[in-house]
């Protein structure tokens, strides 16, 4: 049997995390390749509905990356994200999906290495959890 490779969706904010991902790329840091990066203008523009949709359609893990608290380009965007994503995790827990499948983290534009670390850790963690149980479910 081949090794399970999770499919990960990463929402990166344009001002910090996406630049951080860029830095990780140009620094040639090695990291798992099964991450699809979606660039958004701010982590607060990631509607929790998008996360819910991704999970319910069989994505194995969703990563939301934003600027550090206090560094948001739009002043308070990431404060809002910090309020919303925990609710998503709790709702997933309540229906029986592991809350570790959704993760919120802060990566600044200078933290290429942290980006690598976050991605590697998250992919390992989701690989341990196994495939998303909703992938096989037909509604």
């Amino acid at each position, binding site marked *: 049997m081949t090794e399970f490779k999770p499919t990960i969706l990463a929402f990166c904010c344009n001002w910090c995390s996406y630049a951080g991902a860029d830095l990780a790329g140009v620094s040639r840091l090695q990291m798992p390749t099964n991450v699809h990066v979606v660039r958004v203008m701010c982590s607060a523009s990631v509607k929790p*509905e998008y996360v*819910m*949709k991704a999970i319910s359609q069989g994505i194995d893990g969703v990563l939301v990356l934003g600027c550090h608290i206090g560094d948001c380009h739009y002043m308070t965007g990431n404060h809002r994200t910090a*309020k919303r994503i925990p*609710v998503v995790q*709790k*709702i997933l827990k309540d*229906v*029986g999906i592991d809350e570790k499948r959704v993760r919120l983290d802060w990566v600044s534009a200078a933290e290429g290495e942290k980006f690598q670390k976050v991605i590697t850790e998250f992919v390992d963690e989701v690989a341990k959890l196994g495939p998303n149980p909703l992938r096989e*479910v037909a509604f």
Partner: protein
Amino acid sequence: MREEHGNVAPVMIAKGEDPGDVRTDVPYQLMTILSNLYPWMSDGKKIAVLTRRCDEKALAEIFKRGYFDRARIVQIGLACSKEQIAACRCSDPVPSTVDIGEPHAGVGSDALSEKLMNMSSEERLRFWIYQFRKCNKCFACTANCPVCFCDECVLEERTFVPERGVPPGMSFHLIRAYHLADKCIECGECERSCPAGIPLLTFRKLVAKDFRDMYKFSPGDDKNVSPLLTTLEGEALEGDECNEC
């Protein structure tokens, strides 16, 4: 409420009119009806409405989002009967002022939600998949919900629902659960109106409990001036900001 042709239906009474034989065991959410009536009310006129504790909480959430004018609504407190409390597994059934009826104490726990939280997550997921599979996406839970007052429903957006299609998979319920997280008042109307018999109230109670643990906030709380998830602490809702989410 008045009984007509064997059904209990809401009645509107103008000033000086004889109310006749009315009933006070309200079987549905009056705020849903009021939300439909409100735009048709002529300017400056007031309306009095029977409010149980859940109606009161729904009103608080509606006021927070600026849909109704506080000065135009007169509340008449109505205490729920024991049967109603048992049906809703309601823990907070007594309105702030009781004008009609006798107050009864609430029920502390919900048997099904406790049973679910003692299950392993696989079992719980199997349970909810079984339940949500029964859903035929009739939108009855949305249509009858007292706190579903957005002009454009998030569940009808093209991003989440294909054109002329039904919402796919579990996303309907997950998105709805998130969307109601900071305003669901646990009235149980979704469960009562669901033709498939999905225990939606139990799901709402599970989410509400987590929400209380995280933010020390339960919807219907008047102290909080603005919707919890869309605005930051102490921030009032501005005119140009989206007041629907």
